[in-house]
């Protein structure tokens, strides 16, 4: 290598860069905590400022904002049941129930610890294995994306124990919502009913905000009791209790971080699928799968470690292949190009180690998230608990409106958000939960396009089955996971019934 490690280290941890990393993490956490405001937006606004800095400092700051924003997404998910990005969907499953019953302080600390662990594992993979792991982005093709989306959809079955049918109906409805707009394959305009605002489809983030947050708001104004159960005073961060949960979930954390890193490498799909898959895997491997969804620390740890691991994972194809993994990666890639830095494998061997300074900066920023996150998280939790409802309701309502508008500066998205909210509330009255619908909406496009491309390519080569599954070992593996995920509960059910039967007739 053409540079020495000492100078890289010295540059990365210069006081100025450390300050920038700290600033970036704080800013990112706050932006990420506000639904609708995304890392992409924060980074895009700050890109011009980084042109004035030296490239490494600028990059460190952008990376810090990104990782902070992904972490910050957990706040709204835990405290108001509103995932600001698809990667925080699964965080609501266990985070919000915990907060609701008075364990919000523990949930925030767990989310922080998991994010730091996942982020560090992702960053280390980025620093050490990038050129190797980048091949994953090439090995996963349309059929694998299709099967991954289906694996994500199997979560519907496990989320809706007790009423799988309703879960499936909700999931199918979500899939239909995902088809609205101009079809990528075929080019048809589907189900827009002549409304030009629907050409772009239903924006996932505004649907998320509406489906999850509006019913919470509606519940909030109905009853005078507090939004969240307050934690007893003087309990602190519950840091050691959280560490204890991490220790019992050590393997879960590791597995989720690896899933996050690897799935994060897949351009376009990574962020949303990674946390869903790791949640599903954590639930499958757990000895108490029935506790998932009711405030199980293991579920929260799985999703939060996975989604922060996608930060490092997403940078791998960005830096090695020049293919951005996520929208924030795309902005950073653009900033790199403008700075005259060419991405590619050479980036890791030449270019005077700027990429290593950046990656080290990302690692440092991730570690800084621990103290920063614990402090901000504590205040955010106290704020939400102690603010009277008369102020909390307009605050959250304003965030939903302004947030869904901010995504594309488009009033139409606000209308979509509110309609989805009203629909979500009405459906919850009929016993249909929002999560299956959201899963269908988030994964529908990935599933449809993956399948259609495999179908067209298979058709051209006269080997559809091979293209979709039989000739593709990675697809076999994902397919096997799908079968296990769906089969295991059935198997357990059968065995339970058998033992019950034996007890009844000795």
């Amino acid at each position, binding site marked *: 290598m053409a540079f020495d490690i000492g100078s890289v280290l010295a540059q990365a941890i210069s006081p100025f860069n450390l300050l920038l990393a700290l600033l970036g993490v704080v800013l990112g956490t706050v932006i990420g905590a506000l639904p609708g405001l995304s890392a992409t937006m924060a980074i895009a606004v700050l890109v011009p400022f980084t042109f004035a800095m030296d490239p490494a400092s600028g990059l460190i700051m952008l990376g810090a904002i990104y990782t902070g924003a992904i972490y910050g997404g957990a706040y709204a998910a835990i405290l108001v049941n509103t995932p600001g990005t698809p990667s925080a969907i699964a965080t609501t499953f266990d985070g919000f129930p915990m907060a609701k019953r008075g364990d919000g302080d523990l949930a925030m600390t767990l989310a922080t610890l998991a994010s730091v662990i996942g982020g560090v594992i992702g960053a280390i993979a980025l620093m050490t294995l990038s050129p190797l792991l980048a091949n994953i982005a090439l090995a996963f093709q349309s059929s694998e994306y299709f099967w991954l989306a289906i694996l994500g959809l199997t979560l519907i079955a496990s989320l809706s124990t007790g009423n799988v049918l309703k879960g499936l109906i909700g999931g199918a409805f979500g899939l239909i919502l995902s088809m609205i707009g101009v079809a990528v394959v075929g080019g048809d305009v589907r189900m827009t009913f002549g409304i030009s605002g629907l050409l772009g489809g239903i924006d996932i983030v505004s649907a998320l905000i509406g489906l999850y947050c509006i019913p919470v708001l509606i519940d909030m104004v109905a009853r005078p009791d507090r939004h969240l159960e307050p934690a007893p005073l003087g309990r602190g961060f519950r840091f050691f209790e959280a560490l204890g949960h991490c220790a019992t979930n050590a393997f879960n954390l590791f597995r989720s971080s690896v899933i996050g890193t690897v799935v994060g490498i897949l351009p376009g799909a990574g962020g949303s699928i990674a946390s869903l898959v790791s949640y599903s895997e954590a639930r499958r491997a757990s000895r108490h799968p029935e506790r998932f969804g009711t405030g199980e620390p293991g579920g929260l740890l799985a999703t939060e470690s996975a989604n922060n691991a996608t930060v490092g994972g997403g940078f791998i194809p960005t830096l090695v292949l020049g293919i951005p993994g996520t929208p924030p990666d795309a902005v950073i890639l653009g900033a790199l190009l*403008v700075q005259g830095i060419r991405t590619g494998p050479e980036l890791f061997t030449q270019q005077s180690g700027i990429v290593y300074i950046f990656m080290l900066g990302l690692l440092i920023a991730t570690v800084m998230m621990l103290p920063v996150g614990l402090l901000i998280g504590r205040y955010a939790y106290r704020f939400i608990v102690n603010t009277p409802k008369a102020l909390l309701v307009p605050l959250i309502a304003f965030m939903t409106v302004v947030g869904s508008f901010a995504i594309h500066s488009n009033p139409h998205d606000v209308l979509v958000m509110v309609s989805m909210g009203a629909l979500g509330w009405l459906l919850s009255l009929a016993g249909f939960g929002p999560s299956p619908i959201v899963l269908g909406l988030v994964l529908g496009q990935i599933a449809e396009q993956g399948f259609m491309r495999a179908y067209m390519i298979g058709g051209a080569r006269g080997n559809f089955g091979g293209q979709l599954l039989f000739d593709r070992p990675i697809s076999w593996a994902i397919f096997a996971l799908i079968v296990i995920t769906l089969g295991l509960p059935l198997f357990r059910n059968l065995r339970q019934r058998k033992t019950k039967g034996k007890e009844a007739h000795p």
Partner: protein
Amino acid sequence: MLKRLTLLAAAAAFAMTAGAAQAFPDKPVNYIIPFNAGGESDISARLQQPYFKKITGEDLIIQYQAGAGGAQAWSVLNDQPGDGYTIMGTNLPHIILQPLLQNPGYKTEDLTNIYMFHFTPDALLVRADSEFKTVQDVIDASKENPGALTVGGVATNTANHIAHQRFADLTGAEMTYIPYTGTGATIPGLLGGEVELLWGYTTVAAGQGDKVRMLAVAQDERHPLFPDVPTFKELGIDMVGGAYRGIAVPKSTPEEVRQQLSDIIGKINADPEFIKEMEDAGFAMLNVPYSEMDAFMAERQKVYEDTARKLGSLQ
């Protein structure tokens, strides 16, 4: 040395503007990109940003309003204040094809384009280790086995799809077009071997370096960054085209301001340092100022209408 040259150029440019028009602009100008950050539109805007500041002394603030392949932003352009402080990126063939094929909420003539500053020429790409060395190899293989070759591109009824169709019309090569979500998604498709060929742009080849090979580019002359890659014209295939990018203003913007903006963009486009940055990234320079816009748009309209008719989806 280069730095000094830029400074000189900037000073000269500044002196010229200062003489011509002091009034406009006197505050930051909002530049709306109708796509997501990180795409070609964004990158070229980012490259323009510092030169805009140098020439006018004011900031160019880049905003994103992505949705429906740009249609979401274009359909509201004329609602914006027409004082010259809101400008929006426009793309061809998008703004011609979209109103032709669907109802995107705007018409081509609703958009007041004031400058077209570059285009990314269509290019036929293969992997570096591909068996196809020339365009003729591809044509031969596809005639031997019609439809068996797969060629990737971005979505349906887009610049890539048009290029695919035009190539098929001109050469009789029958291949299967595989649509992807965006340029970013097509690259793993090609590199990972899912498709044999790719309809892309010179920018894709510039970004991917020696991992891909271009067989031909749809330009009048060879691209300075790729002196060894022939143009389709040289091969006897009459294809010149790609994605053209420019800037439009709301309809209510006065003629005078339109002209001033067009002049500023023209000056940025004439900066040698800027040209070098753009060409290194794979863009091909183009200069269609406000005064020549109508003729340019009419010519393009005709080309796209013909191809769209052949795609069979013209309403």
